[in-house]
């Protein structure tokens, strides 16, 4: 600053009265958020680093302690050169649970990643386009769902996969998930909406994208199980939960999606419903990431009243008693190798599935350990991360193969893809077992 930049400003002392108080938007953009004070909580114990699945297999990755508190502490207001290594973070959020001192690690990573994309990644780069595409899978899915058979055929072609790898950097090692011939929402409309009406027991179901477009059987299972317990189900309008967008640093896309979701879910709350989700990353996003990154009206209330579908039943119903009489015959339900997704783990839900299924006669679920599956949403789809992703998943694959079961069980769509990819097993969602145990085939109407 020199004298000529700021000439003495003679009028300024007099116009004080015109300076009326206006509340100011301190953080106009999520990217501008100052998280340096969060570094105060870190005493560098490195527990986060020892719990980071990426750091465990990739020596080049500096780990969450650097990504989070150290990088933020070294930052000045005008610095915008977030280190590129933040793109190697898979956003599994294990560091959040590992930290004994409440450092807002994933919030720091999400914000830094957003800033990296904003400031350092070219809008025209292959990586940006690929990430934008993966993050916004929700935008493409309706098209594929309109012509599901064609889409599945085209995506299954090896030439498509080859092109995907060459032009977009999407690994050709994986098979893209199939699209359902009928989406969940189409089924719901066809069905005529809720089959149970209740003033007292209402839930708003956040099905997310995957259960709508790819695995409507999971969403249908939720409907039948909840209706079995007498709940009236609402299916509010909804956008992507934002999980893939956070992980790709597309904070503006996430903000738009979250704004829709918060408004719709807040309205459902207003109507007396609680919110449940069948995907552990969707519930994680609404509960933790929304309040950390956004401040739309109702964000806190929506976050505080969102539940995982199984958790909600365990708290509000006598699930154990209900299941005491249930039994499932046959190999189909006999043994499962269960993997708790990181995002369920972070919500403190990693033990519940094995507990609940224990009550069902004829069903055995064996926990395959606390390792990360390695795919972390869109992370393992990127050609450059594929190898890391499979290295992280190796422990889980090994434990799955060591277990009695010949099939897998989880609540996260992409963990499910990884489990299937690594072992060749069929992977089921927990709600599908509950549906079979409580409703049986009778519900399949």
């Amino acid at each position: 600053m020199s004298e000529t930049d700021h000439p003495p400003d003679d009028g300024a002392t007099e116009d004080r009265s015109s300076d009326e108080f206006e509340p100011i938007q301190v953080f106009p953009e999520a990217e501008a958020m100052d998280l340096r004070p969060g570094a105060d909580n870190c005493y560098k114990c490195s527990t986060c680093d020892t719990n980071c699945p990426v750091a465990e297999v990739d020596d080049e990755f500096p780990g969450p302690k650097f990504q989070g508190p150290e990088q933020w502490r070294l930052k000045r207001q005008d610095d915008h050169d977030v280190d590129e290594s933040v793109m190697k973070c898979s956003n599994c959020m294990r560091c959040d649970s590992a930290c004994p001192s409440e450092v807002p690690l994933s919030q720091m990573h999400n914000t830094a990643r957003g800033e990296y994309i904003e400031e350092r990644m070219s809008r025209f780069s292959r990586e940006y386009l690929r990430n934008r595409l993966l993050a916004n899978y929700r935008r493409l899915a309706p098209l594929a769902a309109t012509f599901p058979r064609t889409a599945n055929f085209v995506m299954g072609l090896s030439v498509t996969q080859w092109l995907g790898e060459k032009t977009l950097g999407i690994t050709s090692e994986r098979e893209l998930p199939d699209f359902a011939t009928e989406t969940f929402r189409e089924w719901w409309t066809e069905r005529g909406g809720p089959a149970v009406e209740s003033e007292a027991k209402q839930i708003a179901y956040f099905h997310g994208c995957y259960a709508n477009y790819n695995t409507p059987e999971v969403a249908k299972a939720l409907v039948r199980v909840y209706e079995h317990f007498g709940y009236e189900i609402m299916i509010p309008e909804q956008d992507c939960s934002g999980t893939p967008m956070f992980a790709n640093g597309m904070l503006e896309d996430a903000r738009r999606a979250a704004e829709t979701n918060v408004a719709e879910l807040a309205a459902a709350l207003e109507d007396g419903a609680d919110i449940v989700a069948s995907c552990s990353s969707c519930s994680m996003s609404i509960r933790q990431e929304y309040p950390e990154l956004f401040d739309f009206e109702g964000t806190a209330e929506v976050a505080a009243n969102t539940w995982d579908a199984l958790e909600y039943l365990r708290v509000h119903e006598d699930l154990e008693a209900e299941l005491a009489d249930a039994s499932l015959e046959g190999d189909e339900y006999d043994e499962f190798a269960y993997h708790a997704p990181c995002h369920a783990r972070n919500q403190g839900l990693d033990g519940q599935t094995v507990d609940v299924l224990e009550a069902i006669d004829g069903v055995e679920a064996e926990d395959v350990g606390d390792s990360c599956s390695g795919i972390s949403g869109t992370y393992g789809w990127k050609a450059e991360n594929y190898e890391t992703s499979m290295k992280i998943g190796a422990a889980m694959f090994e434990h799955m193969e060591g277990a009695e079961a010949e099939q897998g069980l989880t609540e996260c769509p992409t963990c499910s893809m990884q489990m299937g990819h690594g072992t060749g097993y069929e992977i089921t969602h927990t709600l599908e077992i509950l549906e079979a145990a409580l409703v049986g085939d009778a519900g399949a109407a």
Partner: protein
Amino acid sequence: MATDTEVLVLGGGSTGCGIARDLAMRGLEVTLVERGNLTDGTTGRMHGLLHSGGRYAVSDQASATECIEENEILRDIAGHCVEETGGLFVQLPDDSDDYFREKLEGCRDCNIPARVLSGREAREIEPYLTPDIERAIEVPDGAVDPFRLCVANAVDAEAHGARIETHAEVIDLLRDGADVYGVDVRHDSGPGKRRHAAPGSTEEITAEYVVNATGAWAGQIAAMADLEVAVRPSKGVMTIMNVRQVDTVINRCRPKGDADIVVPHETTAILGTTDEEVSDPDDYPEAQWEVDQVIDTLADLVPILEEARTIRSFWGVRPLYEPPGTATQDPTDITRDFFLLDHAERDGVSGLSSIVGGKFTTYRAMAEEISDHVCGKLGVDATCATAEEPLPGSENLAVLEDGMDEFGLRSPVARRSKQRLGSRASDVLETDDANPVLCACEGVTRAEVRDAIQQSGTDLNAVRIRTRASMGNCQGGFCSQLLATELHPEYDEATARSALDELFQERWKGQRHALWGEQLSQAMVTYALHATTMNRDRDPAASDGSLEYGAFDDGEVR
């Protein structure tokens, strides 16, 4: 051992190093002696404010004018030591409108660029300021690293032929009748670079002229030659926060008062200060209530400070002085101007001048005036060039800013390293060897640490002030042993060990005043780490007895 020099400067703070550089650049033969490390006295114990002069714009306009002039010079010659943060004088509802107006007018009188911001505008610049703020005056205050600046002066003085001796304590000021002709010094570990465990020695250094630039200690030095210099040392506490809550210097806009400034400093923010006269600059109480008071008062300006983590506190002693007969009661009223006491005029004793008073921002101007005086005494005709010649590290900074080279380091580490090293960055950081980060808190790499060891020998505190290694939130808990390891194999294990102990002790000293909340957890983690992984609570290597290796078994055979 005896040596002779043309000019002998006592004191390795900003004034002494500034004088040594100035005189050496004018072609004089200079020796500087310092009791501890460079900056160990008052220079290393200031809040790091590069004054715009705004602070003195009402009470002392001569000082204010001098500050803005020097502020602009230092931005040019010491760009790598200065961060151009800007500063705000913030008015809260209780603060007087009249004073605000006087401050603004004072700035204009002194040619200090100043403009008024509304409360809202000020909060846009600094979101963590209290919402109560009425308005603010923006001035070109800055942040300066006193360590780096002082070292750069010393390094440049050496480059111009000066001899700089640290850890060389003056034990006698030699006087023969009405003439001071030199000093006796005690070298802690022999002359030259510090080397732990090397035997100490004494040296007589004679000189044509002696400059007593020992600041708060000037009275003690003068007394060795039976001269009286009535310095009135005044202590002030400064508290270092773990992160920067603000990126602009924040001053409270009201007449003198304790605890009215927050200075963003490197990765931290420094809160200051208090002003209380003490009798001995080496021995005064450091009380917890002083720290508490500073935090509480400044939380009115920046509320988040109330909950923020403090990593250490330190006290500095101002070398205040006023001419005999002034008898000001309150130390805050004593002038911040400096005084050149020519003992020939004053006491009829030739060969010696003492410098007292003054402030860091104007160190160069003080050095210039004193150097002119010394040249006059010695009949040397040479002009001062320190206002134009950049310090080592500050040449061609624009080139560095444009340079995209990150030296294979992660972005924030590269950025902070380049800021510390300035134009020396490529010389230091370009290496074919592996260059891991040794101090993760401050982003200091092995190459930078080795460069500092080259400069200063085994003294890890000297490495610290050059690099900031161990100055972050763990206060050396995770890095001090890594720094010590870098001394090996050039220095032996015992030397590395005592260098480590000394650094660790120094880090602990300041942390004692921050042991609550997170910093207490930090201290506990550090203790556990050092005790369990290095045996540093009961280190057999530190005891005299030999270890009975036979008592260990071979472990379980598998």
